[in-house]
C-alpha cells in the first residue's frame, strides 16, 4: 500500500477529508482533494487519444461529438465538477454538454464559429473529487 507522511500525518487509501498544502509564499493554499485535475487528455478529431491521465477510452459519436470515458469515476456527475475543453485552432469552440455526461463519462462537443458541429483536435481537463 502506498503511504504518504506529511508533518507527522499519515495519508493512505483509507484517509478521508481534505488535504490542503500551503504554497511556498505562505499565503496561497492548494486544496489537493478538490482542486487537483483528476483527468486530462489530448485527442485527435476522431477521438484517438494522444496522451492522457485517467481516461479508459474515447468515443467518436459523429461529427464534432465525443465521449471520453474515465478509469476512475468522479465522485459526482461531471456536470457538477469543474472542467474545460479547448480546440487546437483559432476558429473552433469546444464545450461539455450536459445530456449523457455522467460521473464516469464526459461528453464534449466541438463547434465552428456558427455553432455547427465540426471535427476538431481538442484537449480537456476535469477537476473535482474522485469516487
Amino acid at each position, binding site marked *: 500500500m502506498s503511504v504518504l507522511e506529511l508533518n507527522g500525518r499519515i495519508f493512505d*487509501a483509507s484517509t478521508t477529508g481534505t488535504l490542503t498544502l500551503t504554497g511556498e509564499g505562505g499565503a496561497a493554499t492548494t486544496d489537493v482533494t478538490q482542486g487537483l485535475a483528476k483527468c486530462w487528455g489530448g485527442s485527435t478529431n476522431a*477521438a484517438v487519444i494522444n496522451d492522457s*491521465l485517467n481516461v479508459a*477510452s474515447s468515443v467518436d459519436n*459523429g461529427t464534432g461529438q465525443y465521449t471520453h470515458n474515465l478509469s*476512475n469515476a468522479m465522485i459526482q456527475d461531471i456536470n457538477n465538477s469543474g472542467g474545460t475543453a479547448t480546440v487546437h485552432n483559432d476558429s473552433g469552440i469546444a464545450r461539455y454538454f450536459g445530456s449523457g455526461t455522467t460521473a464516469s463519462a464526459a461528453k464534449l462537443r466541438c463547434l465552428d464559429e456558427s455553432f455547427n458541429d465540426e471535427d476538431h483536435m481538442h484537449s480537456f481537463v476535469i477537476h473535482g473529487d474522485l469516487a
Partner: protein
Amino acid sequence: MIQTPEFQGTHLWNRLSWAKENLEMYKSEYCVVYEDNMDECAKVLHPDPNWMACALQGGILPPVTSYWELKKDEAKPDFVKHTRGPELLHNMKPIGPMTEEEAIEYLIMKDVPESVWRDWDKGNQPKMVICKKEQLPPTREWRNAWKIDPELKVAA
C-alpha cells in the same frame, strides 16, 4: 518488464499515476464500431493508450464488474455522489494482465452500452464490430452517415 507493486488498497487514481510514470503507452490498432440507436450514425470507440498499458501490465485495474456496480449506482434516481469507490475500485483485488484481445473485450463491457454488447450478434444485422482503424472510411466527410454494413459477416 517492470513489476507492478501490490496495489490492492491503493487508490485507483494513484495506480494510474504510477502507470503513467512507469509504463510505455500502448497504441492499439483496433477500435470498436457500434450502433446503439438506429436513428444515429455508428459510433467508434478507441482504447486509451495509457489504459491499454495498464491492462496489459496487470495488477492495476479493478474487475469490470466494479464498473457495472458504479453504473447501477449512477442510474438510481436519487444518485448524488458515489459512496462505493473504496469498496469497488480501490480495495477490490486488481485483475491480472490481459492480452490485447481481452483488454478490448473488457473495454467493450465497461464503456459500450450493455444493450449493444450483450447480444451484439443477435437480430437482423450486427450491432458491433471490432476492426482495425485502417478499415474505417478514409475521410470524415460523411461521418454522420456511417453505418455498419448490414451484409457484414461477423465471427464470434
